[in-house]
């Protein structure tokens, strides 16, 4: 069995994580009443439903029997992460669309301000746990498989969750590049710095765990040390997707480029969120592809 799951699965895990992070970040801003970051709540809410819907749509056509995808909903398989995930994502899609609707202008909806605020709050209360659940689910889907040592660690769900939140911050930075306030961009940059740091720690944890585990786990992690997966992992995921944006966003957070007058490297700093998104996508490619080569 080699690479039964391909690029559509990679894309689905990435887009699912992106939506999960967008809703979680948006809902958190609403729930913590961070009114000065209202642009993050609005943009996050408006963007959240679409990536996962696109991803799930693509995934249906990855099935051997696309026209029978509805059997996912008619059966009962509570021990199957995929069955649970299907329901969580269906619920997530409904809640995220309703949550986005509370950000539509009043002249369009005809809702009173109080009603909109109340429903925004209620849906955000559902949206935060649902967003975190979808982020965790993308890791659990792979993580429960004892047959694939590279995936079979509780740290994978953490890695995908943190990466989901980080890529969501990065996408929000792209979307709010012109329309956002300096304060919103600074909050996202600072948040992303923290998330990237945690992501690096989780990755370090995965290697530590593999190194102190049975030989099969070590053989799984060893795939990340050698070509071809190791090449993509270390250059694109770690170097370009985590370390470089970490440094750039840290400098940006403390306003160093502006204070030092680094005008010529401006585009490099602007590219940091794009690097985070590229890294997030490639992380999932490496994990999905290398994981299928790893075996007990």
């Amino acid at each position: 069995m080699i690479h039964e799951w391909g690029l559509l699965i990679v894309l689905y895990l990435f887009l699912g994580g992106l939506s999960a992070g967008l809703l979680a970040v948006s809902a958190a801003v609403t729930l913590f009443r961070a009114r000065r970051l209202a642009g993050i709540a609005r943009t996050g809410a408006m963007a959240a439903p679409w990536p996962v819907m696109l991803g799930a749509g693509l995934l249906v056509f990855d099935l051997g029997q696309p026209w029978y995808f509805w059997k996912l909903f008619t059966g009962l398989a509570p021990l199957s992460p995929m069955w649970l995930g299907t329901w969580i994502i269906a619920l997530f899609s409904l809640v995220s669309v309703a949550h986005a609707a509370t950000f539509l202008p009043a002249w369009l909806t005809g809702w009173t301000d109080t009603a909109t605020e109340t429903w925004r709050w209620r849906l955000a209360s559902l949206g935060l746990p649902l967003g975190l659940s979808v982020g965790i689910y993308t890791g659990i889907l792979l993580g429960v498989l004892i047959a694939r040592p590279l995936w079979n660690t509780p740290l994978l769900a953490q890695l995908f969750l943190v990466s989901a939140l980080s890529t969501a911050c990065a996408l929000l930075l792209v979307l709010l590049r012109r329309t956002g306030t300096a304060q919103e961009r600074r909050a996202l940059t600072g948040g992303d710095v923290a998330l990237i740091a945690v992501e690096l720690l989780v990755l370090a944890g995965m290697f530590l765990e593999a190194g102190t585990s049975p030989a099969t786990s070590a053989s799984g992690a060893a795939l990340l040390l050698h070509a071809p997966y190791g090449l993509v992992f270390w250059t694109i995921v770690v170097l370009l997707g985590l370390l470089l944006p970490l440094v750039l966003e840290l400098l940006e957070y403390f306003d160093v480029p502006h204070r030092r007058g680094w005008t010529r490297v401006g585009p490099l700093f602007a590219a940091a969120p794009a690097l985070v998104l590229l890294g997030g996508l490639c992380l999932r490619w490496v994990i999905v592809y290398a994981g299928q080569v790893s075996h007990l």
Partner: protein
Amino acid sequence: MSRRLAMVIDAARCIHCAACIVSCKAENGVRDGHSRNRVTETERGVYPRLTVSMVPAQCMQCDDAPCVRVCPTGASFRAASGVVLINTDDCIGCRYCVEACPYDARYFDPESGTVDKCTFCLHRVDAGLEPACVTTCPTRTRAFGDLLDESSEVARIVADDRGEVRLPEAGTHPKVFYLRGAVQ
């Protein structure tokens, strides 16, 4: 009548003639490019002191089957005979079970859009015959029977602890056993 169908493989007898693979394909109409069973050859030692071990493998018919656990539609199930089967009407071809199997015993058939695997030739067993691979093997590498039938060869081998399973650490409790010490 309750059954626990099982198989014992004496890998030392296997000569990798592939008759089991061919008879399985013919019996079960397995499409070109796929097979439900296989033989793995492993070379050991350094020239000129070399040895090759040939180990047949197929679905292990696990009592605690990861493929059944992860199936999102319930298409994969454990039948009363203890055999793990796929209801292809309910299989949507997500291939989660293929990923979940520690023995790489399942395959996806793009033509049917569903997953397929060894059924212990349940249709033959129910008619009082043995699975095709068992009947065909010229070296009698495989023994087949019911673990609940104490007089059967497989029940005696398992009761005497002469059989071992592959990847016991996976906790899958297979019902395909390998004769201990058959392969060094």
